[in-house]
């Protein structure tokens, strides 16, 4: 029997890519119909409120689960889609927060006789903040769409170069995932029973994947140039926000800022 190998991006060959968020963006719910500018502003206010909490303040973050839950429900965004975005981000937070467990050993509270140190609280706080921020950004993309979002960012005077990098990175990740999926399929078909990519093939796999995705990205760039792309992102004006948009933004600002002030 074949030894288990190492997992790799796209090793589950049928895993949906970034476009699943884009599919959600095509819906016509009340949240989707909101003006992109208020959704961007609401996400920024929400993120700022979440980040502003102290490193040991876990309890204060609890009300902030309400925003993604409500938004996901109103926009009919499947929970599993959000989890699929949150879970890959958590290991980064895990590594970032783990050091707190060792360096901050000051006892803070006692729960059912168990002493909880400051390090544990700040570790949990980092994990929660990561989950909240990733879900807020995912919801922003899934209810607005990358094209509208980029146009909105440019019209909000975000440097065009930054927006361009964002859009091309988003596209490049999809290219990378596609190439990875097709390579993975070819690999598995010639190595029956393998789970993921074997460690001895990993170096070649990553190298070839990189070369293939660069070649593919160059062809995509050529196609963009052929359609008049010259390094600037074309922007079309959005209509102005209406009363419903202002109400949404006010409600989100109040819901994000009030718990912070009362905390």
């Amino acid at each position, binding site marked *: 029997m074949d030894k288990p190998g190492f997992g790799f991006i796209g090793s589950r060959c049928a895993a949906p890519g970034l476009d699943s968020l884009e599919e959600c963006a095509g819906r016509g719910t009340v949240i989707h119909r909101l003006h992109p500018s208020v959704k961007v502003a609401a996400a920024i206010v929400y993120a700022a409120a979440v980040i502003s909490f102290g490193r040991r303040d876990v309890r204060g973050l609890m009300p902030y689960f309400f925003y993604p839950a409500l938004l996901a429900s109103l926009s009919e965004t499947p929970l599993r889609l959000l989890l699929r975005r949150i879970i890959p981000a958590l290991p980064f937070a895990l590594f970032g927060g783990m050091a707190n467990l060792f360096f901050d050993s000051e006892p803070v509270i006692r729960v059912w006789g168990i002493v909880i140190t400051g390090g544990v609280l700040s570790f949990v706080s980092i994990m929660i903040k990561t989950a909240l921020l990733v879900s807020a950004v995912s919801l922003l993309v899934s209810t607005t769409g990358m094209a509208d979002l980029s146009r909105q960012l440019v019209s909000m005077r975000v440097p065009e170069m930054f927006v361009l990098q964002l859009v091309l990175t988003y596209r490049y990740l999809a290219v990378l995932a596609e190439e990875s999926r097709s390579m993975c399929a070819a690999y598995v078909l010639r190595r029956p029973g393998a789970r993921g990519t074997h460690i001895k093939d990993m170096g070649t796999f990553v190298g070839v994947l990189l070369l293939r995705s660069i070649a593919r990205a160059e062809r995509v760039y050529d196609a963009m140039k052929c*359609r008049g792309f010259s390094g600037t992102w074309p922007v079309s004006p959005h209509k102005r926000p209406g009363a419903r948009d202002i109400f949404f933004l006010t409600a989100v600002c109040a819901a994000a800022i009030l718990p912070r002030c009362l905390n």
Partner: protein
Amino acid sequence: MKDVSVTYPDGNRAVNGVSLALGNGERKALVGANGAGKSTLLRAIVGLLSISGGEARVDGIALSARTAPDVRARVGMVFQNPDDQLFMAKVADDVAFGPRNMGLSEDEVNRRVGSALDRLGAAHLKDRVSDRLSGGEKRLVGLASVLSMEPCILLMDEPSSFLDPRSRRNLIKVLSSLPQAILLATHDLDMARRLCSRAVVLRDGRVCAEGSADELLSDKQMLEAHGL
């Protein structure tokens, strides 16, 4: 094009002294074995590759690095792999990309998107996610994304690849109805014969034969001699 040559940075001269002309509304097939220089020639016409010798003019504009953006506004290129052509998440955004880059008003962009998709019978795909389309649908959307710029010339690189017979028949029907001049690089000799009035046979970057598509593409001996 007059005596056009294209040399890659490694010194390989993929196109060597090619001369050809394409009139208004004319449809010409560019046939040749793999490596004959068909795709290279198409890429040179839109300025994706530099011409190392000779001269090319599109609608009176001499092709150079400086004039490439003007040429690209007149010449639409449909790539061999539709996945390379479609880079926006949604079909409507992809078809609108070219017109928006041309600085058109949003009303005009919407009109062109609707018109291009309607002409190809693909209006129902407008709000779909590009990656979820079938091969035939991707090909149509790729073509629509070029037609929305209203070019006077279409360059098509192996348009029948990735297509099933039905999608291929549909594509031939669609292309036959377009008013644009078309330069079609293909291995699909049947498609070339059905669609084009003239044909050019390339071999090792040189023109070996040129003439009526019916006559040229029926000459089995000549085609076999040139690797087809």
